[in-house]
Structure formats: C-alpha cells, structure tokens
C-alpha cells in the first residue's frame, strides 16, 4: 500500500532516514529492525577520510538545531569495506550520500561506489566548493549544472541530487540539475544559519555559519518542495523538519515521492516507525489505496 518507486528503485514505504542523522544505521538497529524502513541514506561519504570541524558542533535553536559537523566520515574505501557489508543485511534501500569539495573528488568516490550493489546515489552539492573559494556548489545553478553533468557521466546508478535551500533560485536550480541528467531530486539540505555566544562575544561555531534543521524549517522546506515538484517531472524526495506522519503527508501532497527524516531521529530514535505506521493509518482512514492518489494532489486542484 505504501510502496513507491523512485527512479526505478522500489521502496517498501516512502520513509527514508536522512543523511548524517542516521550514521550507517548501526546505532539505530538497537531500537528497531531497520528492514522496516523505506530506505537509509548513509552519512555523507567523501573520497578521503575527514575529521570534520573542531569546536562546537551542535547548537540548539527554537524548534531545531544548528550543526557544523563538517562531513566527518571514514572515506569511501573504509565505508565500502567496513560499513556497507553490515548495512546490506537490512532489507531496505541503501542510498549512498556522496560529498566532495572538487568535481574530481565526487567522480572518484562515485566510481568506487559504482562497483558496489548500492542501488542509488544521493549527490550532496551543499559542501563548500574548494575551487570556487568555499561557496557551495549548491548556490548557483550553473555551478551545480557542471558538477551534476560530470558526475552523471560516470554514475552507473540512479543519481538523486540533493539541493540546498540556500540556492539562489530553487526552481532554476532544480531545472538545471534535471538538464544535467539528475534522475531525481531531494530537498532540502540544511539552511545557512548562525548563533552568537554573547558572553564570549564570538560566534558559537568556529566556521561562524552552520546548518539549520528541524521542524523550524518545515514551512520553508515544504514550500520549496512544492515549487520544485510543480516545475520538474523527475521524482522528488521531500526533506525538512518532518516529525510526524502529518508532516510527511504534507510533503507527499505537495508532490514528493518519498520523504527523509533527519533531526527527528534525535528526538525519538524510532520516530521513523511512528511515521510509517501513521501514514498507513492515514491512508486506511481516508480510503487511499496508493500514495499516487495523493501525490501532488494540492496542485491538481488549484
């Protein structure tokens, strides 16, 4: 009933754990069987190991949190050797979230991941683009076009591009990623935000700016998903502040095929299960047989 096909890959339900909030699954398998999930996005993987940022990494805000993890990860080789075999035991769709600071880095990581059985890649274009002075790939559509087309050329798996809400024009960004060959889109990543330690008279984060997530961003994320779904024909995965089945249904009614749950996992480790059963119950109560019936329904009416 809740199953959904995204870019040719079958998900048993639309609920996917978001990158960076779910590690490689290990920590959550203690709370429930991860085979119940529609899918899992891995922590962002880069070509080489990264230690991430120093200083404060987490700062709570009203209705969410700022994070400045800085892509700490063991690198693609260690991921493939040590984490992937364990993840593949779960009967769920594994999505490799790939980060990088140069196009070459992305390409080399994807080439290594091509050789695995991972069915889908998610390209995180929010990482600071080293060659362009730190401005993320995800801000200017032209820069995104370049990285997506290059990666698409080598990718042997469906390529979902994860958009940043900091994009100058989210609809244009979505268009250009489509043109560049993206098979699907996911959005949103975290919003650029900041906080100040007023007693220390300095920013809370060493990088000054950090990424905002959680229910605080939901209304904006939902609007962006709606706008993108109205503009492109490829599948879209909605992300941003989803805390319960109602939030998830809102994204689906805006046009999303699937949803990702990020910060919500911190509040309740098995929140994804609640959302899955909530969606099932909603569908039963409302007499909905397939998510297709309500996907984008708010657009069809107006």
């Amino acid at each position, binding site marked *: 009933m809740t199953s959904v096909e995204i870019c040719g890959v079958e998900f048993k339900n639309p609920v996917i754990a978001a990158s960076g909030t779910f590690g490689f699954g290990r920590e959550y398998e203690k709370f429930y069987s991860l085979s119940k999930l529609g899918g899992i996005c891995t922590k962002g993987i880069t070509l080489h190991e990264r230690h991430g940022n120093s200083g404060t990494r987490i700062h709570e805000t009203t209705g969410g949190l700022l994070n400045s993890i800085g892509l700490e990860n063991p690198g693609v080789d260690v991921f493939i050797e040590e984490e992937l075999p364990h993840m593949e035991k779960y009967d769920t769709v594994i999505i490799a979230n790939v980060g990088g600071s140069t196009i070459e880095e992305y390409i080399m990581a994807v080439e290594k991941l091509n050789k695995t059985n991972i069915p889908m890649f998610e390209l995180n274009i929010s990482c600071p683009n080293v060659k362009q002075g730190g401005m993320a790939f995800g801000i200017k559509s032209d820069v995104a076009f370049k990285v997506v087309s290059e990666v698409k050329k080598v990718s042997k798996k469906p390529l979902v591009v994860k958009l940043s809400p900091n994009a100058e024009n989210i609809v244009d960004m979505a268009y250009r990623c489509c043109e560049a060959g993206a098979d699907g889109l996911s959005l949103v990543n975290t919003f650029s935000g900041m906080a100040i330690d007023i007693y220390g008279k300095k920013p809370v984060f060493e990088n000054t700016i950090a990424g905002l997530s959680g229910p605080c961003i939901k209304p904006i994320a939902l609007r962006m998903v709606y706008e993108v779904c109205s503009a492109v024909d490829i599948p879209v995965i909605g992300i941003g502040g989803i805390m319960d089945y109602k939030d998830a249904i809102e994204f689906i009614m805006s046009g999303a095929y699937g949803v990702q749950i990020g910060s919500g996992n911190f*509040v309740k480790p098995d929140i994804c299960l609640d959302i899955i059963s909530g969606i099932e119950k909603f569908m039963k109560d409302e007499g909905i047989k397939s998510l297709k019936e309500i996907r984008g329904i708010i657009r069809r009416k107006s």
Partner: protein
Amino acid sequence: MDPKYCSGVVFSNTQVYENIYEMKVGENFKGQPGQFYMLRAWNREPFLSRPISISNIENGTIIFLYEIKGKGTELFSKLRSGDSIELLGPLGTGFPLGIEGNVGIVAGGIGIAPMVYLCHKLSTKVDFYAGFREKSFYMDKIEKNVENIYISTDSGLEGHSGFITEIFQPEKYSSVYTCGPLPMMRIVLDMCRKANVSAYISMERRMACGIGACLGCSILTTSGMRKVCKDGPVFKGEEIVFND
C-alpha cells in the same frame, strides 16, 4: 546492554542544595557507573534531550543528580512525583570497574553525580576529593562507600579553602577517576601524568542523538575521532587531545 527508549515515572524530585536536585525514576533501569541517559520531559521545546549521568541505581530505580543550568534542567526541576519522563539509555562507555589498587576520585561540583554510583560499585579502597563553590552537598551519599573524603570550597566555608587540586595527591593511587569542570580535569590529568598514575576522565560535549549517529560530540583523541556519547564519556586521560 543495549539502550532502550522508554517512559519512566518520577518517584521523587527533591531539591538537594540551591540549584541541585535529585530525581528518582522507576522502574527497572540498568546501567554502569559513568554511563548516562538522554532525558526529556517535554514535547518539542527544547528540541533536544539532555544527557544526565546515572548517579545511582537502587533496585531498578534510577537516581539522577542534576544542576539547573538552563531551560532543560529547569523543566526537570518542575517535575513532580507521578509525572512521566522519557529516557533513552543506558548510553556510552563508563568507568572501568575491575581495577586493582587504591583509587582516587576527583570531582568538581555537579561532577560528583556519576561518582556516587562509581563508589558504590568499586571494591577497592577509594579516596574522594570533591571541590565546591560555596559548600558541599550530597556527600552523605558517598561517605559510606569510601575511605577518606577531602573537601575544598572556593568560598572557604568548608574544608580546604581553594581548589581541590591543591590538596589532591595523585601518587597515593594506582588509578584516578575525574569528573567536573574541564580546567579542573586538565590539572588532574597533568598531575597524574607527572606522577605516572593512570587517569580516567569523564568528558562533556553538547549532544544531539546521544547514541553515536550524528557526530555532534566527536572529539579528536590519540586514536582518531571518537564520540563522547558512545566511545566515552569516560576516556583514558592520555587519549584526550587538547587543541589549544
């Protein structure tokens, strides 16, 4: 022991000292000294749960000793017996227990919280050094399980007047455990290193998930990046890399 996410019932929640409260929650809780729970007694605001150490466990009733610091602990202090509270735990890696020889414990302020359970569980001879700002609190819960108690206060109102590290003698012990403000713990580690005594330190970092998934609490150690919530909060003193 795998952690669980569940609801508990507050049995009691009493003020121990100015800003310090003791909360008993039932039932059937488990854990080791130095481990902690992520607690929440609210729906959405504050967004994150709060890490609080196991201060003791008596017949499955878990005891938390906490200090009001901000919003979250303030809300904890308002709980009344019969209220429910969400618990995620036990989490992390606690203090090693099967240690030989004399043990010295150095705690500062609310840093005594995990040490109560630790003293309870250690079977060797233990000396307890505790530093406080104004006056000591909760020490009656420690007395019965230790040999000697040494107290210092910044105020001079009780025990040694000054820092606890001024009267701490590392060379008397084969192992030292410490929990408290970072500056204090750094001095303790320094003293232990010089005296060639092995030291264990309970680290504190802001946490989001508490279970090792978000990497919000990662710190650099001599063995690479480690998570305070999972690989710690207790680390061997020499593992910690202070980058300043």
